[in-house]
């Protein structure tokens, strides 16, 4: 399994400090967030041990107050720059980040929280045609087609992608901020009272006309 390794190293039991170095190096060179499973496989270690070291590294970077930190995103680990450094970085790379339209954000939010979801369901919630927005989000690879729904017409069903998690720096979908619930919005108005007022309004409307 190690045949590609240029150093052709022997897999002996690594010293603790070497383990740490190797894990850090693997995270550093991995193109996308690397999973603890993969690290464990390469270093022939137990996943739990790998996770422990990764957590130690995370704490270390945080405590050291460096320009980069070890983040857990999309069920893997990745080094990322700190938010407060973004100004300097933009000076260097001179690219403008993609700006989301409000329609795109709304649609993305609906798909993220309601997945798997069809386009028709999203359009009902938004009250507008969303074909163009879906296309953009698919192109940006933030959403993906999960399959077809087993209802007449077999519409496509959509969900968020791995890239979505990486993009917003989430470990998994459970990291989505909790939705402000229906009931939260209603707290300042007890249900019964609201219902009583309701009838009044009906009469008001009548008078109005």
């Amino acid at each position, binding site marked *: 399994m190690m045949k590609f390794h240029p150093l052709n190293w022997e897999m002996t039991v690594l010293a603790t400090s070497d383990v740490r170095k190797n894990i850090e190096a693997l995270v550093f060179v991995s193109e996308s967030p690397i999973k603890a499973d993969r690290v464990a496989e390469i270093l022939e270690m137990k996943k739990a041990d790998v996770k422990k070291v990764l957590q130690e590294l995370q704490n270390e970077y945080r405590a050291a107050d460096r320009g980069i930190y070890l983040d857990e995103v999309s069920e893997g680990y990745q080094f990322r720059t700190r*938010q407060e450094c973004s100004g300097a970085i933009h000076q260097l790379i001179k690219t403008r980040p993609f700006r989301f339209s409000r329609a795109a954000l709304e649609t993305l939010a609906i798909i993220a929280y309601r997945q798997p979801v069809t386009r028709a369901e999203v359009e009902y919630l938004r009250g507008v*045609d969303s074909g163009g927005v879906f296309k953009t989000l698919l192109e940006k690879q933030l959403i993906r087609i999960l399959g077809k729904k087993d209802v007449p017409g077999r519409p496509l069903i959509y969900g968020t992608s791995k890239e979505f998690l990486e993009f917003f720096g989430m470990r998994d979908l459970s990291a989505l901020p909790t939705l402000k619930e229906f009931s939260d919005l209603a707290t300042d108005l007890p249900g019964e009272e609201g219902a009583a007022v309701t009838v009044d309004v009906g009469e008001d409307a009548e008078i109005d006309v």
Partner: protein
Amino acid sequence: MSYEIKIENFEGPLDLLLHLIKKNEMDIYNIQVADITDQYLRILDAMKSLNLDVAGEFLLMAATLLHIKSKLLLPIHDEEEGDDDELDPRAELVRRLLEYQKYKDAGEAFDAMPRLNRDIFARKFPSPELVVSDDGEEMIAVGIFELVDAFQKLLKETSDPYIHEINIDKLTVSDRINAILSILSGKESLSFLDIFEEKPNKPVIVVTFLAMLELVRLRLIRLMQNSRCGNIWLYPAVVDDEISPFELGDDSLGYI
């Protein structure tokens, strides 16, 4: 009567309604339907007079509002009384508005989150073409979207000045299938771009692409890519060089 209307950029009828409710400081559970309908229709008129295209969705909502308004005018019969929520013709609209408001807020929350390549950066890597990948395990299956993307990119690159020309030599899918198989034979993998000739014209691209899809369907090749946006590679699904050119009538494939 003068009524100043500022046309803002509304995402849709629900967005507009929410705006009106907020502006009038109405309780969302207790919408003054007559008032709101009036204002809503006035905004639609204003949009029309500005020659803005009023999308069908806005008109549908106008009809819904008028329908609710007319229902509110009807007397409520005693025998129908029961669950107040069921009786209130506005209930469904309120539900939709609240649901929409929820996702609108969530969308704004998304925008405020630290985001990759805007607030937070990860390392950039050399383009996959510069690196020889000898690790088959890392290959990921190609999705339909990537495939369509690759196809369109190829078509775009070959946008020759159009010259009308009657093509006599018939290109068939089975020809291209056998061509792909012969290029692939003895090789471990083949880049998607290598199955095309130097400067293919559109018919060749289309037929070759169909041939490739046909091979996937027949489970003779697999399509993989080594990174999400990386090159697409063709792999023989059968390990040995056992794939021999086989006879395929184009009729059997359903193409002319």
